[in-house]
């Protein structure tokens, strides 16, 4: 009987590792930006190439930076959620590696949940924010520090469970 004890224990440890591994989402790479100042940028506005936009403009507010693109399928899935919460949350859009006309048409067709939209045609700002799969959403506090990053389409559950409580907490601070 005792001779089976060691393999059994080893097997159970292995199962433990597998069980933990299966629960992790390998696509969710933790962002090193959390707790650091949001990378500065100055981009043109999507609707107005003459005007610019920068995270500085949002200083003093808790806001969301939502990275999207008209070619992004999951963004279409996320869009109704953004529209639903656009009244309660200040969301700034970052149109990532897109055509200006396509981006504008997309917002016209589906509705515009954004306070402002920045246009990042070559994806440079995306690289600064460590974007690797749109849509991605950052929560940025009053001091301009990145507090949270959500990878993939926002869902009502993710918003209610993680983002809204955090925004409320940061707003009180």
């Amino acid at each position, binding site marked *: 009987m005792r001779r089976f004890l060691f393999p059994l224990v080893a097997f159970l440890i292995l199962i433990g590792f597998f069980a933990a591994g299966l629960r992790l989402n390998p696509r969710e*790479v933790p962002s*090193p930006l959390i707790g650091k100042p949001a990378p500065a940028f100055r981009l043109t506005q999507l609707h107005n190439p003459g005007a610019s936009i920068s995270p500085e403009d949002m200083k003093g507010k808790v806001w969301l930076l939502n990275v999207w693109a008209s070619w992004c399928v999951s963004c279409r899935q996320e869009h109704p959620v953004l529209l639903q919460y656009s009244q309660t949350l200040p969301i700034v859009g970052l149109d990532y590696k897109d055509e200006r006309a396509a981006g504008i048409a997309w917002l016209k067709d589906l509705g515009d949940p954004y306070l402002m939209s920045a246009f990042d045609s070559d994806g440079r700002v995306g690289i*600064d924010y*460590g974007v690797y799969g749109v849509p991605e959403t950052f929560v940025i506090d009053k001091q301009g520090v990145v507090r949270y990053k959500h990878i993939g389409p926002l869902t009502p559950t993710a918003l209610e469970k993680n983002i809204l409580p955090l925004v409320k907490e940061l707003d009180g601070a």
Partner: protein
Amino acid sequence: MVRKLFIVCIAALTWAMPTLAGEAPTVAEDPALEARVTKLSEELRCLVCQNQSLADSHAELAQDLKNQVREMLKQGMTEQQVVAFLVQRYGDFVLYRPPVKSTTWLLWLGPFLLLIGGLALFIFKLKRRRPIQPLTPGEHAVAEALLGGKEKSR
């Protein structure tokens, strides 16, 4: 008929070749720089297709990052500075060789711990094995009879 079709297909392919070639990523004018870019991008993980390096990946982000690496090297940044730039944005995950630090010591030392554990177990088992006893004269006679009998039966 089949042959004709085959020839048409090949012809169509050769015609399509130049268009494909037109989409190839930027070919550097400087082969030395390109070699450095390739060498460095083999050490960096593509975040879109996570089991490929930036050098192998054809994901658009990988192309962008390779261009970024090329540009930074061209500006005279060292390999370490480029890596630091990417780690700052994407985290240690971009490195195929994770740095040795408190959170990764198990990753680095784990295999050696397993090896030492295995060796220790092996030696322990060997030590505990009962030594082989020489045969008693009685046993010897039995063995001989058995072997002898076997030989006869052949």
